[in-house]
């Protein structure tokens, strides 16, 4: 089963390497990893999606916690949470078919963020299944380039507020 871990870490050089290295050498697989600063610039938050049974996830969590730079770790999978991923897709879009593309973009509540001579770039956010769906809906037009952020996630309600220093 896939687990979504929210990991607050010190915002220092090398921390990502420590985390990624730990996964690699202990044989755990990272499905996706997204990282950015929090409201406290000294702290970054990573959202790590990892696949494994309860035993694997328990070990992953414990091993992560052992890293000095890891401040707090929450397995969001065990609670109510919201998750999002963002995608930028550049598709072939001759002027003749742009209307059709724009309809799809509307259906998915996505946006066109750039128009080139024969291409458009579409931005969409949503959970993984929505992102997969828009990607396959646009595939017939000819996808030139895709970039996805990986999952970010946050628990609902007041629990697990960001860690303050």
């Amino acid at each position, binding site marked *: 089963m896939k687990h979504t871990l929210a990991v607050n*870490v*010190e915002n220092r050089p*090398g921390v990502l*390497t*420590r985390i990624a*290295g*730990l996964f690699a*050498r202990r044989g755990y697989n990272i499905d996706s990893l997204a990282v950015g600063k929090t409201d406290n610039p000294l702290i970054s938050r990573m959202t790590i999606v990892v696949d494994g049974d309860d*035993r694997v996830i*328990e*070990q992953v969590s*414990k*091993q992560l*916690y*052992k*890293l*000095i*730079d*890891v*401040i*707090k770790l929450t397995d969001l999978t065990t609670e109510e949470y919201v998750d999002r991923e963002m995608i930028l897709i550049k598709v072939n879009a001759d002027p003749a078919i742009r209307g059709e593309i724009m309809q799809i973009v509307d259906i998915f509540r996505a946006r066109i963020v750039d128009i080139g001579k024969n291409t458009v770039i579409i931005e969409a956010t949503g959970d993984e299944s929505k992102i997969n769906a828009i990607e396959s809906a646009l595939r017939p037009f000819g996808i030139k380039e895709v970039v996805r952020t990986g999952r970010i996630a946050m628990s609902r309600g007041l629990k697990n507020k960001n*860690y303050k*220093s």
Partner: protein
Amino acid sequence: MGITGAQALIKYLEKEGVKYVFGYPGGAVLALYDALLESKLIKHVLVRQEQAAVHAASGYARATKKTGICLATSGPGATNLVTGLATAYMDSIPLVAITGQVGTDMIGTDAFQEVDITGITMPITKHNYLVKDVKDLPRIIQEAFHIASTGRPGPVLIDIPKNVSSALLEEDYPASVELRGYKPNYKGHPAQIKNLAKLIAEAQRPVIYAGGGVISSNATEELRELAERINAPVTTTLMGIGSFPEDHELSLGMLGLHGTPYANYAVTECDLLISIGVRFDDRVTGAIQKFAPQAKVTHIDIDPAEIGKNVTIDLPIVGDVALVLKDLLKRVGSQEHHTWLSQIQKWKEEHPLRYANDDQLRPQYIIEKLGELTRGNAIVTTDVGQHQMWTAQFYKFVGPRSFLSSGGLGTMGYGLPAAVGAQLAKPESLVITVTGDGSFQMNMAELGTAVEQKLPIKIILFNNSYLSLVRQLQHYHCDQRFSGVAFTGNPDFVQLAESYQNVAGLRIAKKEDVEPVLQEALSNGKLTVVECRVSEQELVYPVVLPNKGLNEMVHFPADEGGRYE
């Protein structure tokens, strides 16, 4: 006007109570060595290769519970530390390793003697630092000492670029350490301790399984009190040797691959396994599904990640072993286990540790004699191989920090440099290294270090011109096709010893020599190499073969009516 980073480092090391720095100089640490000259409190011990510096620091740490310090230059100096750091990491030894680095403006340019040592050592240190700004140095040094010695101890590396060592610094040592992400949990959960007391009260066949964690948390007294109070036998891991006196009637000695038969039987048959500061290493458990199959398995450890890592645990307690045992002792009453202990006594009588005590010179006999002559009153370091297993089996260790050996990593070449560290830490103690010709040759240049430091270490060297533990593996797993294990170019170790000033070289060639030669070595007050000419055909018994349970071990052949080679 401040002081340089290098001067600050030495000042802070003094503040941390450092007495010895084991190291090897080089271009990137010139400023550090220069500052070291000014220290009246810290003595530098020049080793022959950096790996020995880290092993010596480890020997010092293991003998004392203090943090060991080693120092190396950038590039090859730093990479030579890698094996020693991994050794210390696997065995949870508190160390601070300081390396020089090329100047910050050169980092990433593949400059002369540049290596990304923080990148390299990430998986084998508890934490590491690259100091990019001299202002961070005081905080980093303090954090490094704190991290190395608290919680589950381990090595910490600080990489200091050349220009950082020579930069001027105004900051002083911080008053306290503040690490948001590092808060070891020392006190065990009271409800869990209560549950453990309940399990103990209900158990009919308890076994205590003690590891290195008992020694690192100085919990040997508590362990003994618990064992005696609840009348439970105690078996130890290799790292746990010395945590429980082996001359005690409740001692089962070591368990596992080459453990005692009675320890292996007891663990297989017990109904409660009280695991304390252990990590269920594969060399201990044998086939994991056959390990302690009838037992409720409980585990006390400071490192939560160790709990449930290899074996499913019925009752975990995260905390410092000494504190948890103190709390536990408040809750457990006296117990008797007559039937269980008489069963164990029967195993002890039926399956004692055996060897062919005939007229041949047997290494096990030498170890036994060594134990008798020293009455366990020595610090024994070992290398890795058959001699290490025989020392673990036949030398009766009675106190903690008296057996210093590379447990987790199995590092050959550990014994002599570790003895250097231990002897400097404990100048009044008798320090003995038991080694083999293979292991000894990995770091025998450290004889020079021991000579320089005037250390009267006793080196008991089993020479059979073979890598005999590998040979033993080939005996069992490769149908006795012995590949790459014979040494035909060994030196005369007695002459080698005597080529150093004031070093004695002695030889034991036959059984009658053992006692007189050992006596001479132990009493001559000198650094001494005792070469023991032994057979390469000797095998370590018992042995648990792959995929077998502990109780399925191969016994000493004569015990099973077989022929002894």
